[in-house]
């Protein structure tokens, strides 16, 4: 229907963005009626997302002609930004940014490096940056979920944790059940994506490859490859972040620093 009113691609794109944003706003209003106030966060996130992706799209036009080594800088910048975004989900957690950035750098970074070295990801900037960014973005989401869940679990179980400490448990062991639960919960979206691939959803990358004339079977296999890499990088990121963060919630004298009212 929008195509009847908008003839240039740019106008059509903006109109489609406006309609999609409207759908999101309706959800925000419905949530507001139930006393769930997400409006500020969602509006800022949508505005930021739109501006950022248009900016990146414009920059990509230039970068696509840049030498291959610039991919490394772009991906490194994305990792830092992902670390900062993810750390916000762990409000009150000591060293949340550093833990997130290191976890994403090692988790996503090592999988990207290995896959590029093995030739699974093409070294061309047009391939490495988009595929790498998908892995970093998913690692960021997984890390945010893991940190957020760990924080909530620790705050909800201060009594149990301090009882274990008082009985002589090692600090890191006293939070082991919550580390495990956070790791498992953070991987639910990645596992569900793999499980429902092709049945519930046909991912954008595969759709794009089909539109650009790739053979459907190769497009399908490559989509699986990307999702498997996303799972590997997300899983490794979550594993690293939960391992790192569990030591950060204790003082050197093994006292629990994360306490209700202190965070």
């Amino acid at each position: 229907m929008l195509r009847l009113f908008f003839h240039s691609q740019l106008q059509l794109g903006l109109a489609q963005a406006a309609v999609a944003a409207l759908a999101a706003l309706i959800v925000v209003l419905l949530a507001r009626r139930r006393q769930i106030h997400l409006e500020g966060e969602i509006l800022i996130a949508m505005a930021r997302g739109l501006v950022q992706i248009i900016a990146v799209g414009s920059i990509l036009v230039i970068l696509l002609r840049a030498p291959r080594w610039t991919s490394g800088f772009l991906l490194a910048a994305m990792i830092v930004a992902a670390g900062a975004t993810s750390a916000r989900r762990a409000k009150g957690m000591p060293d949340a940014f550093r833990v997130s950035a290191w976890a994403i750098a090692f988790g996503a970074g090592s999988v990207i490096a290995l896959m590029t070295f093995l030739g699974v990801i093409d070294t061309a900037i047009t391939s490495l940056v988009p595929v790498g960014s998908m892995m970093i973005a998913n690692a960021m989401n997984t890390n945010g979920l893991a940190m957020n869940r760990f924080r909530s679990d620790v705050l909800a179980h201060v009594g149990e944790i301090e009882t274990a400490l008082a009985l002589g448990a090692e600090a890191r062991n006293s939070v082991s059940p919550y580390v495990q639960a956070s790791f498992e919960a953070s991987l639910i979206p990645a596992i569900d994506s793999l499980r429902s691939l092709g049945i519930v959803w046909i991912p954008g990358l595969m759709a794009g490859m089909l539109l650009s004339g790739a053979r459907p079977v190769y497009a399908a296999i490559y989509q699986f490859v990307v999702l498997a890499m996303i799972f590997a990088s997300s899983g490794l990121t979550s594993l690293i972040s939960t391992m790192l963060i569990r030591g950060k919630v204790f003082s050197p004298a093994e006292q629990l620093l994360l306490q209700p009212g202190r965070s």
Partner: protein
Amino acid sequence: MANIMTALEGSSPVILRAEHLGRTVNGKILVQDANFELHKGEVLAIVGPSGSGKTSLLRLLNRLDEPTSGTVFVEGTDYRGIEPRDLRRRLGMVTQRPFLFPGTVADNLRFGPVQRGEVLPEDSIADLLAQVGLKGYAERNVANLSGGEAQRVSVARTLANSPLVLLLDEPTSALDEAAKLEVESSIQKVVCEKSLTCVVVTHDLAQATRLASRALVLEAGRIVRAGLVNEVLHA
């Protein structure tokens, strides 16, 4: 009791000594300049109104919180020089709510020894449970225990670590009257039988009189009175 106390203070070694112990968080004084000694076999009650710093003081003794001033000496050693896990095993703490771990009563009793790679023998489990009046409870699931039973398991679990000092943080305040008496009598029995050195935090003055030989009264984080329980609480 006063005579026993005097004898104790005269002959028994000092197990625990707090020196200028204090904790201030974000400008709020929780405990200020606490100075006291605890002799072997002595039961000390810490009493005071809600918010006076009783639990904060007990947490400092167990080093669950870090003092911002002063320190505690355990058998003459500054506790900052003792490995925290070893310190907490030696100064066993029973919290207001029992916080039992999922599993059986025996699993809970084994928890402390397992942390240092030891296995608690079955007969020790039976003995500990008998001491708190829960003979035959070893294989019961903790989910099916009453509040009083759970608190007695919590006491037995702490005793399984063979602590030097038992720290009790309002152990009966979350219980109904019948359960409160059960738990209190279990504590009294254990403390007497084992001649345990004990610090009990309570807001119940009658309970402090029944359990302790000496008392500290806290107000706004400061010790305002200290001495033999009858003199301090019934002056």
